């Protein structure tokens, strides 16, 4: 239905906060079905890129197109309804709602509602998604009772509920135990198998290299390198940017 190449195109994207250039003329693209990793040191502007793509921040200049359509000037909820969902770096569930209600909220966007699905179908789908991401069985407990890892899963479940074609994950592995990390890596691969395209910000390069088809490295809002995982991590600019930081590939 759409071309596989240039599924998501980020073209000379720029964001200035006052005098500070958070993102400067950043360009990259993502093909359908791919998993693209976005890496860079802390404060490199990765999350800003996510916020620009998903409409949470207005860009200063440049453009983003998804399936050939510009996303510029669109509101976050409109972008979601084009099939582009995201998670948050700081996990943001609804603490006082039950797990199932956390996921249920996403049922009430037009993307789900327009399919004419009723409450029964919604309930069915909630169970399905919860099982797929591996949430605890008791979906009536409030989200505030979950641990950090399960909250990540909950956030992903909520994003999956809108049935995205392209999923943006913001540091899905940070702060997780190794078992939890393995689970999410597995989940990412499974989702990709189902045909979901993924754009992932991640510090844990080892895990990211396992799943990513390509990687873009940025620093100070500018692109340092792009290519296969091996190419990027060995790129001199990337090595330089990472050396001396504890996030470097060598120590990961």
């Amino acid at each position, binding site marked *: 239905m759409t071309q596989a190449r240039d599924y998501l195109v980020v073209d000379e994207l720029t964001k200035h906060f006052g005098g500070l250039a958070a993102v400067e003329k950043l360009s990259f693209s993502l093909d359908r079905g791919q998993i693209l990793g976005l890496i860079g040191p802390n404060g490199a502007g990765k999350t800003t890129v996510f916020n620009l793509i998903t409409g949470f921040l207005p860009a200063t200049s440049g453009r983003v197109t998804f399936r050939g359509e510009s996303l510029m000037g669109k509101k976050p909820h409109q972008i*979601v309804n084009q099939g582009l969902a995201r998670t*948050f770096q700081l996990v943001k569930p609804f603490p*006082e709602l039950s797990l199932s*209600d956390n996921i249920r909220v996403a049922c009430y966007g037009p993307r*789900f509602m327009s399919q004419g699905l009723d409450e029964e179908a919604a309930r069915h789908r909630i169970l399905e998604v919860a099982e797929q991401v591996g949430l605890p069985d008791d979906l009536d407990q409030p989200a505030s009772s979950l641990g950090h890892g399960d909250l990540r899963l909950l956030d992903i479940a909520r994003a999956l509920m809108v049935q995205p074609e392209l999923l943006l994950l913001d540091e899905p592995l940070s702060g997780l135990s190794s078992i939890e990390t393995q689970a999410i890596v597995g989940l990412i691969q499974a989702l990709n198998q189902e045909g979901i395209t993924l754009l992932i910000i991640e510090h844990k390069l080892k895990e990211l290299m396992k799943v990513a088809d390509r990687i873009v490295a940025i620093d100070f809002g500018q692109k340092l390198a792009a290519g296969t995982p091996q190419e990027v991590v060995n790129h001199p600019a990337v090595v330089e940017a990472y050396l001396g930081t504890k996030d470097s590939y060598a120590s990961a």
Partner: protein
Amino acid sequence: MLANLKTPAQRHTAIFYGLIMVGFYFVPVFSDNFYLLSVFTTAYFYIIFATSWDVFAGYSHLMNFGHALFIGIAGYLTAFVDLHLGLPPLLVLPMCAVVCGLLGMFIGYLTLRMQGPYFAIITMAFAAVAYESAIMFSEYTGGEEGIPGIHPLTDSLIGDYYFVLVVMSLIFLFLLWFTRGRWGLVLKAISQNEDAVLASGINTAWVKIRAYSISGALCGIGGSVYAYSLTHVGPTSMEQVLSTTILIMAMVGGMGTITGPFLGALILVLFNELSRDMEEYRLLIYTVMVVVIIFFAPRGIVSWGQPIARAFKLGGKRGQAGS
């Protein structure tokens, strides 16, 4: 709605409020004491005001400090329409609902981006503008003394009582239905994390505007009935102290539950009348209550339902009384 009553606790809650409501309908059977009826009628008005406040402010946590605006606007509209056009209440009520609903939508649109204290100030400011205008345009509004002589709702006290009660019941039921469904869930989610709701593809701005509009419309109906019942409207119907009282009732009862503001309004009005001799101390007592509630029961009176029910061995292991 009954389909949603999965747990025993929810069923007990429904029975509890159902009993109260039925009880209201039987009050005149036991006594036609004017004083008793007027106390309950006052309580019904405050229930309408507090629950309609709750559907927006309680759920979204955007503190509306100027809810009385809708009471006043509806009151003056009622006075004008009643005295100059002579329309019957059954036509005037929907009219007030529409006007206040549109007003709520307009204010909601203007204040969309505002957070926390800014939202509080602007709601106060809108009510204050209306209040000052009512005093300023005294040619039309009667100034500080307001407009007397609005025709009563019915010919008898009991008729008035039932009229107000029916309106209150309908509004209460509507709000329960509205908030127990997807709107309530989305509003609650917005109050906890608006970004995540946006990221779920929901136009949160529109949801909030709509909720504010509904809040205004329902309060407008209440305001209109209030004016009919007093046969008078004046700027006091938009006073800051009224807005604050509504807010305190809702908070004491428990925000974001509808049932909480219902109980809060009922209990505080009854308390107020019982302590008539202490009327001067009313706001003082309210203030102390607010402090106590915020520190010891931040979720309001409704949150006591659960432990009380547990003490009486009602409800399930994770009963959600009052929600």
